[in-house]
């Protein structure tokens, strides 16, 4: 069936909340407002205020509360209105959620999902347009997922909710309205498994979340010029499915990594290093990265456009390797 990304997330949470009483949704305006981006539409009616919980604007406080509830055996879903506000809760995420299993020698678990939109939308300014996935990926004890399609969003969110460890689940404001085919009935997608979104033999492109859509568009354009790119969406950023990426690189000998986050210490740097370390001899040229510019996101449209990867830059990067 065709669903929007937003509807797919809604279904995933709804199915899991029906299946498991321990699962509840907590965050700013998730109940009566139905979520800032309407992801929890209809939840308060179906599950009531005991399980769909509006919070005050205190990300550290309610994220910490959710971690505590998870330690006591519940399976909270924390909705951050945007991932930017996760910075306010970073102490809880990094110092508590990520470390509690390890520090306790395996006695405690934190089965928790923290989800919300990352990356830029349109002209939201510097504090609401950040791609922070590299920050979360850097921390041992966290899993990080950033699906691009409604099908992946549904299957991976269900897996995240069932996971025994803390999962950062990064959506995108500009993806919520996008539509795609979603498998009927009950299904999950395993965490840590990439998918080849388009096959080709000339160049491999790795991209995730919103950037996947850009890259698929670039692949179409390149195909018209006779260049066939293979597009891989890791879907899960940590643990990363390096095997699938490397298998493709062995075939094409060329790799471009596209991400919206900042260049320096970005996720692409890690992916590139991992590929160099395991498949250097298969590369016919340097790995190219297309990233966000190292600037706070500007407000005005021309500069914002300049700060984010676009079609010409992706196409140029691919052609530079041929």
């Amino acid at each position, binding site marked *: 069936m065709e669903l929007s990304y937003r509807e797919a997330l809604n279904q995933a949470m709804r199915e899991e909340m029906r299946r498991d009483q321990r699962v509840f949704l907590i965050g700013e305006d998730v109940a009566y407002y139905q979520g800032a981006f309407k992801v929890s539409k209809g939840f308060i009616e179906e599950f009531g205020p005991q399980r769909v919980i509006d919070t005050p604007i205190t990300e*550290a406080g*309610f994220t910490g509360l959710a971690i505590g509830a998870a330690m006591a055996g519940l399976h909270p879903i924390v909705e951050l209105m945007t991932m930017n506000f996760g910075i306010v809760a970073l102490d809880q995420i990094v110092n*508590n959620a990520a470390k*509690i*299993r390890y*520090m306790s020698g395996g*006695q405690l678990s934190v089965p928790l999902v923290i989800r919300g939109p990352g990356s830029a939308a349109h002209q939201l300014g510097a504090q609401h347009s950040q791609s922070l996935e590299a920050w979360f990926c850097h921390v041992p004890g966290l899993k990080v997922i950033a699906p691009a399609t409604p099908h992946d969003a549904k299957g991976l969110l269900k897996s995240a909710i069932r996971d025994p460890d803390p999962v950062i689940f990064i959506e995108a404001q500009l993806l919520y309205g996008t539509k795609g085919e979603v498998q009927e009935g009950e299904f999950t997608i395993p965490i840590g498994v990439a998918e080849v979104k388009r096959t080709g033999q000339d160049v491999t492109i790795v991209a995730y979340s919103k950037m996947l859509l850009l890259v698929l568009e670039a692949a179409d354009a390149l195909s018209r010029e006779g260049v066939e790119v293979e597009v891989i969406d890791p879907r899960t950023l940590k643990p990363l499915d390096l095997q699938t990426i490397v298998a493709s690189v062995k075939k094409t000998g060329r790799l471009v990594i596209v991400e919206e986050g900042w260049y320096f210490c970005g996720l692409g740097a890690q992916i590139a290093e991992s590929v160099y370390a395991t498949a250097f001899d298969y590369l016919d040229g340097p790995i190219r990265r297309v990233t966000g510019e190292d600037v706070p996101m500007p407000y005005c449209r021309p500069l914002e456009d300049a700060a984010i990867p676009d079609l010409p830059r992706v196409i140029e990067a691919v052609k530079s390797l041929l």
Partner: protein
Amino acid sequence: MVNMDTADLLSLYRQMLLIRRFEERSAEMYALAKIAGFLHLYIGEEAIAVGAIASLRPDDYVISAYRDHGHCLARGSDPGRVMAELFGKATGLCKGKGGSMHLVDLPRRFMGGYAIVGGHIPLATGLAFANKYQSLDLVTVCFFGEGALPSGQAHEAFNLAALWKLPVIFICENNRYGMGTPAERAIALYGDVAETARSYGIAAESVDGMDVLAVRSAMQRVVAQVRAGHGPWFIEATTYRFMGHSMADPAHGHYRTKEEVEEYRKRDPLTLLKSTMMAQKLADEADFKQLEREIGEVVRAAVKFAEESPFPARSDLHADVLQE
């Protein structure tokens, strides 16, 4: 009314003595480099952990900050496994991965020591939330120092606890110093720190944290209220740490005088209870000598167990990052 039952009072004294002697031996072991890193001793504050935890059920939750040995021992954890954790041994409560500041004993519902000041207070509200969510009549007790009180996370937690009437008891151990900074230079409402909680609509009171019977008596009343579903409670327990903030600094130093420490030592919680019992002729010197012998043996055995235990294997390094 305080129940003056000899066996009961001796049991409280015994627990405080265990913490006192355990901490003294920990300090020695630190000096011998058997224990490394940070070591924050609970000496002087024993009456709070013992009095508060004595009023709990075994299935209630307890969570603490980094000065956590006392709470863990008062909860009934095996002193050998606690000492082994301080030594970083595989037999420690947390297999040597937590250390002094991060003791956890899940079977005793001791949910951990946490070392970012104020950062565990929201966790306490979460434990309480889970109990309320599941309609369990459990309470959660959260210990923290007065140094955590001005932190934003404490305030966010107080607001949520009050807003949602969570069954949590906040125990502020006011030992007057956040490391070297006196509370009057750190907390705007220092004159009455319980007022901080009251401003959120949380019932709050102050208790003499040197008097184990006063602490227990207050807690018994408060636990009953909170267990009955009347929302959170805040207790300020006034106390004093007789040692430095950690093993890295001396008992007094530049920020407080030797005379001040000596003055507070006159209200040593162990001496206070012992004097009460002696005055009421509920026990004599021989009883206390016997307890000293017993506890001495327990602590000696704990150190021996820690000494003789192996360090974790290097192959354990990556275990428990995620569920295997």
